[in-house]
């Protein structure tokens, strides 16, 4: 039942989506077919799916860990941008250099950048008891403006005809492709490895246990000697660091330079990925692919049947609505015996 809800949510999204878009005067059935099946049936789109899913999975894994700990990091978008910017900074410093160490240095900088941006809400929550939802969210907006400033001024490519963008990264600063002649880069296998490691850590280690206990039963966690404070820090550093990793992989992979159009909302979509994946790193892989399908399919539907790109967002939001609604039907049976135990846990 636990895993039936996400499947049901996706299927219901397709049915309801077809109805709603038909009512809005679009070709609803066509839209659903284009969005949800075309990326799967057309092998040419599989690479697109992989490179779209990779950042969603990496960010989504981090968020699923944070949400398990009941730490509501809504700032993944900002941490993703921060990671990409930190990596870009290293790239711009090493423009005239060569060597196999440059890309790893950029990746480390990216992870640290995401962690740093995630550390701000962690510090504010643990030291000043400020709710992390609003602070992490505000930081998303703040860093976008910092990015625009850097691209307009200090980071602008001197040979770039005054476009606000950096120089192209050199080959030793770019993420290699898996095979010659593909667009599939190393970010894709890295995403899978991240998810597998996270799954192992969450289900087999004390760290994972701590995260889950603090999130599910704070009093029990305190009794067991787990520090809530440390858990908040861990949750935000891990989710921030992974968002930063996704950011640097994206800028060194598909983008290969920093542009104003870099922030594309992956950090927000990854919230849906985390929930659809049941806050379980393995589930996040599947959910990341499903959301990647809606992105790639949305682009297909745009060209084939002229469906506006905003439709993708509606399908994604519907999926989350229906999942949250379906969750209750899953949990309802558990809740039926709640009165007997409510007194002990309250």
């Amino acid at each position: 039942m636990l895993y039936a809800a996400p499947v049901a949510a996706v299927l219901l999204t397709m049915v309801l989506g077809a109805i709603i878009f038909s009512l809005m005067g679009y070709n609803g059935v066509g839209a659903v077919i284009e969005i949800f099946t075309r990326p799967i049936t057309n092998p040419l789109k599989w690479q697109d799916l992989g490179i779209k899913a990779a950042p969603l999975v990496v960010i989504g894994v981090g968020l699923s860990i944070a949400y398990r700990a009941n730490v509501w990091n809504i700032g993944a978008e900002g941490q993703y941008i921060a990671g990409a910017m930190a990596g870009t900074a290293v790239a711009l410093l090493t423009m005239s250099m060569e060597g196999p160490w440059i890309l790893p240095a950029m990746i480390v900088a990216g992870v640290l950048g995401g962690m740093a941006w995630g550390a701000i809400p962690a510090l504010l929550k643990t030291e000043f008891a400020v709710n992390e939802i609003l602070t992490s969210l505000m930081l998303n907006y703040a860093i976008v403006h910092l990015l625009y400033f850097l691209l307009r001024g200090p980071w602008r490519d001197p040979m770039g005809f005054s476009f606000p963008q950096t120089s192209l990264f050199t080959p030793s600063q770019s993420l290699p492709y898996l095979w010659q002649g593909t667009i599939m880069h190393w970010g894709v296998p890295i995403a899978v490895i991240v998810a597998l490691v996270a799954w192992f850590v969450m289900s087999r280690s004390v760290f994972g246990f701590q995260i889950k206990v603090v999130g599910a039963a704070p009093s029990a966690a305190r009794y067991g000697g787990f520090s809530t404070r440390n858990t908040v820090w861990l949750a935000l550093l891990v989710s921030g660091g992974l968002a930063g990793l996704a950011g640097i992989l994206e800028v060194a992979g598909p983008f290969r330079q920093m542009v104003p159009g870099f922030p594309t909302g992956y950090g927000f979509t990854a919230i849906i990925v985390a929930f659809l994946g049941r806050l379980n790193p393995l589930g996040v892989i599947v959910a990341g692919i499903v959301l990647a399908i809606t992105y790639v399919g949305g682009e297909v539907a745009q060209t084939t049947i002229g469906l506006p790109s905003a439709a993708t967002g509606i399908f994604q939001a519907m999926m989350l609505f229906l999942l949250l609604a379906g969750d209750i039907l899953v949990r309802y049976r558990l809740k039926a015996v709640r009165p007997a135990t409510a007194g002990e846990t309250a």
Partner: protein
Amino acid sequence: MSPEFLVAVIITIVGAATPILLAALGELVAEKSGVLNLGVEGMMLIGAVTGFAVASTTGNPWLGVLAAAAAASMTSMIFGFLTLSLSANQVATGLALTIFGAGFSALAGKAFLGRTITPFVEVFPAELARHAIWRVVFGYSPLVYLSLIMVVLTAWFLKSTRAGLILRAVGENDHSAHSIGYSVIGVRYAAVAFGGAMAGVAGSCFSLVLTPMWAEGLTAGRGWIALALVVFSAWRPYRLLAGAYLFGAVMTLELHAKAAGGWFSVVPPEAWAALPYLATILVLVAISMRRSGGTSAPACLGKPFLPTA
């Protein structure tokens, strides 16, 4: 600084503050009943696009405002159904509402890009504001006066009416309110619907008065600032009013800095643009530091209500 310049400054501050004031008032009432709706930004966008669509089609901006309130209120019922009837997680549902609102408004607004609307007729006759100074009292859009009336009404409703007392009781102790026989879920539905309607009006304030036009994502995160404003106000309507104007001042600083010239013009525009968000964080920290120990948040805020018997 000439008095005319000062008047112009005040008018832009009030203009920028009004939508966040409206949206935050609605959210304040919802939170007083114990519901945390993070979908303010999404509901504002729905209101902005609906208000603009109706106003540009009918030529009547007031119909636009009404439609914006109705549409956003209906949207908030998705949130209400999920969180109140199905006791879904309020944080996740609110986020979904924001993502939905952003997508839906972008889609629905496609047809209205580049259209124009008839502006509001001034509330007060132009003779009253003959001197520039008087514009500080008489020179605003009707929605500004509406927002002030709503502050007074909301404060009065929460403090002095029986219904307001019940709403607060539901937010402070849902099980007690339930056991006396009040419908916790019913009260919360009403509060969420009110919050939605106010967010809708706030959204229409962007597309009908401030911009005035429709553009994708034109509320630019102001809905989230409204949420922070509720925390800032410690859930008190009059403090909310003061806070909104304070934020309005921060949001319009760039404009005035440019006009004032001098060393202000050295500051890059991006820094001014980021300022409201950073100021929000600082304000949240300041409030939290001053309020060591207990908070003034409604006790049941964000918790689903599950009747035990």
